[in-house]
């Protein structure tokens, strides 16, 4: 039990993700989270605006159920499997974050400068959260996949489009982390 309660090392987490991918295919579906965003659009009536969303979303209900499970898994972990919220970071990371205005890095899973209720209810904080989401959703659907569909499945399947997409993920991520984040806080 002690093993479960500790943070899982990369050589535990990585293989478990591969197992999740395997199980999805083994049971006849696929592994990809961001397509659920399109299903949300379809359920919300986006088919009125473009035929792109006029699909029978019930065919993708298995993926919505998967996401529901992910939410429950997060709940189970947070309440019963995670005795401490601390994330042990490289001291240099903590210092770098303090320099750009994010304090106490690693004392919880998420920085309060982005995810606290007060930040969410401020205009700037709300816009940061919303814009981050729009970029993820727009980018993932333009590229045809996110970390699961491209980085895990696509690279495992030696797909050139996925290699290009993952290079894109890193170009965008490096620009945000090194150039834009220091200007926000």
């Amino acid at each position, binding site marked *: 039990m002690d093993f479960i309660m500790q943070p899982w090392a*990369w050589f535990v987490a*990585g293989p478990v993700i591969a197992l*999740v991918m395997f199980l999805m295919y083994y049971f006849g579906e696929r592994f990809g989270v961001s397509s659920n965003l399109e299903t949300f659009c379809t359920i919300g009536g986006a088919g009125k605006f473009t035929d*792109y969303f006029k699909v029978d979303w019930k065919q993708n*209900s298995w993926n919505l159920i998967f996401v529901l*499970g992910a939410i429950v898994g997060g709940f189970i972990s947070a309440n019963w499997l995670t005795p401490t919220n601390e994330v042990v970071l490289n001291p240099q990371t903590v210092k*770098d974050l303090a320099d750009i205005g994010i304090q106490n890095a690693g004392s919880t899973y998420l920085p309060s400068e982005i995810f606290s209720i007060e930040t969410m209810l401020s205009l700037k904080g709300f816009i940061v959260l919303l814009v*981050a989401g729009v970029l993820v959703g727009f980018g993932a659907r333009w590229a045809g996949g996110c*970390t699961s569909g491209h980085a895990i499945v696509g690279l495992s399947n030696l797909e050139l489009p996925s290699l290009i997409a993952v290079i894109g993920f890193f170009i965008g991520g490096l620009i945000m982390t090194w150039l834009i984040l220091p200007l926000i806080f």
Partner: protein
Amino acid sequence: MKHIKFFLIGILFGIVMSKGEIISWYRIYEMFKFQSFHMYGIIGSAVTIGLVVMFLFKKKTLKSFEGNEIRISPKKKGLYRNLFGGILFGLGWALAGACPGPMFVLVGKGVLAILVVIFGATLGAFFYGVSKDKLPH
């Protein structure tokens, strides 16, 4: 009821995302600063095992639960869609510190603010759907 297995796999996914600290904003920041091996180790080991799994799917050594051949539908080709879409995704990933999977796991953790990010991501998918004919692919 036939979907209960995907619910259970989802729970496993949610637990590994949490316990592997992949849902932590800091782990994503640290990755893009090249200050920790953690995320590289996770993605690298998942892909390494994934390569073997995909190979065994192709060789038909591994078949589905129902005994059928498992085929992986190829990703859509196109430099612009994958590169530009990827870059926008990366900008959002590093800002939110979460890609779509972890976003939902964070809902289960009780992080209210992530709902704004998920709403934004849905809006982003909608914007793509209505503008896709004007975008290069």
